[in-house]
């Protein structure tokens, strides 16, 4: 099992826009470099790319939730 952490403090988004599907649905497989969400920091948006590969992603942080740097966003098997 591995964790994907937030690189920055800010607000976490699971999709590129409110009317778009999430980058990853619960249970999806993840490859290194896959975008799993966005962090909004002071009105600028930064992609969160997975540094691990795995299956069955489970999000620990909800869409639009505030996060601190280093917070666990998701786990993968």
């Amino acid at each position: 099992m591995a964790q994907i952490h937030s690189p920055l403090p800010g607000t976490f988004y699971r999709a590129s826009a409110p009317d778009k599907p999430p980058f990853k649905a619960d249970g999806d497989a993840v490859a290194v470099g896959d975008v799993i969400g966005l962090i909004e920091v002071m009105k600028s948006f930064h992609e969160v790319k997975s540094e691990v590969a795995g299956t069955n992603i489970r999000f620990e942080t909800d869409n639009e939730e505030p996060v601190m740097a280093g917070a666990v966003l998701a786990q993968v098997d």
Partner: protein
Amino acid sequence: MLRKLLVANRGEIAVRVIRAARDLGIATVAVHSDADRDSLHVQIAGEAVHIGPPAAKKSYLNVASILKAATDTGCDSVHPGYGFLAENAGFADACAAAGLVFVGPSGDAIRTMGDKVAARSAAHAAGVPVVPGSLGRVAGIDAARHVLIDTGFPVMIKAAAGGGGRGIRIANDLAGFEAAFPQAAAEALAAFGDGGLYMEKVIARARHIEVQVLGDGRDAVHCFERECSLQRRRQKVWEEAPSRALPGRVRDELCSSAVRLARAVGYSGAGTVEYLFDDESSRFYFIEMNTRIQVEHPVTEMITGIDLVAEMLRIAGGEPLRLRQSDIAVRGHAIEVRLNAEDPSRDFAPFPGTVTALRVPGGPGVRFDSMLYAGYTVPPFYDSLLAKLVVHAETREAAITRLVRALSETRIEGLRTTKPLFLALAGDPAVQANAVHTRWLEGWLETHAARLVPEPEP
């Protein structure tokens, strides 16, 4: 006079408005999100009300929470600051419906100026020069081809319902125009639910010059102009007043055109009429009117001695304009720089965090508008403005010298800030000669940004 004011904002502008209200003897109520419990505006207001979680749309944009806070605390008025709900006509209407005085213009004035096409038409009707283009929406591609006679190329095709740089296409020739026009209509319909388009000539090299106005709904005056040509991604970083670039006769025409527009829309409160100014032709063109107090208002305060926020509060309290045009004069030169929590050497990456130590500049002609204190943690959820350093001196040259002096006194430890940018700009010959335009800074940054690292502390 207003009795008790809710300040529907955060950061330095909430601090600024609370100070102005207290100076007038008006009781104050701050509002704050979970992320702002320890903020300076909460500490210095008479009362503070929690209005929601960190996300702005659940707190500082939450109209129901803000109105409830105002009525629960017995306020008679609401000041929106800038950003958030400041130019939301529905919020102004909702305040009025709740029996609260909205410190700003009417919802209808906000609505007219917020609609780009309506604002352009109002300006034209008031005899304010607008950028050559269509007078309103263009009916179709045949009508659009006729507008090209006035604009030439390149031409901007803009969504009538767009804004903030969205919904704009530029065509460089007729073939490009024929292709872009139907695409722009389809995109505008998809993005804004409104396929309406209008057209404007592209003014390639221009300065950004804006006029501060004050109105009481019946009459209006101007407080001269500001020049804000140093911009990055359409965000102003350095503002000054007066503009060194304007010939005197043009200044008179520019400022009186802004007053005509304010009078024509029955403007109440502080507002800013923004223009592009073309050095070569000495012509100016209306871009838009901002129906709020602006970030850079202190440069105008420094050269005129007028407290613009206090005047807004007096007008909202029902007083007529206290100032006649002949009472308002310019003295000296003022410059403001925006110290943001951003690293200019790394593409202005945001840098929230804790201020471990703080040294604020002072002395003659120096003003530091900020919400910072030592130990304050800058949250990541809102904009990156930390402080506005404003200097005033007899001449522009002396103001730049004073700016460098004040910047060198300023220490904001624990964060990266845009201070190195301003030290470099103050030393640049083009800035010293004011030989700049709105795209100048972006070009300059391509060759200078990597060197904008914090200087070693002595």
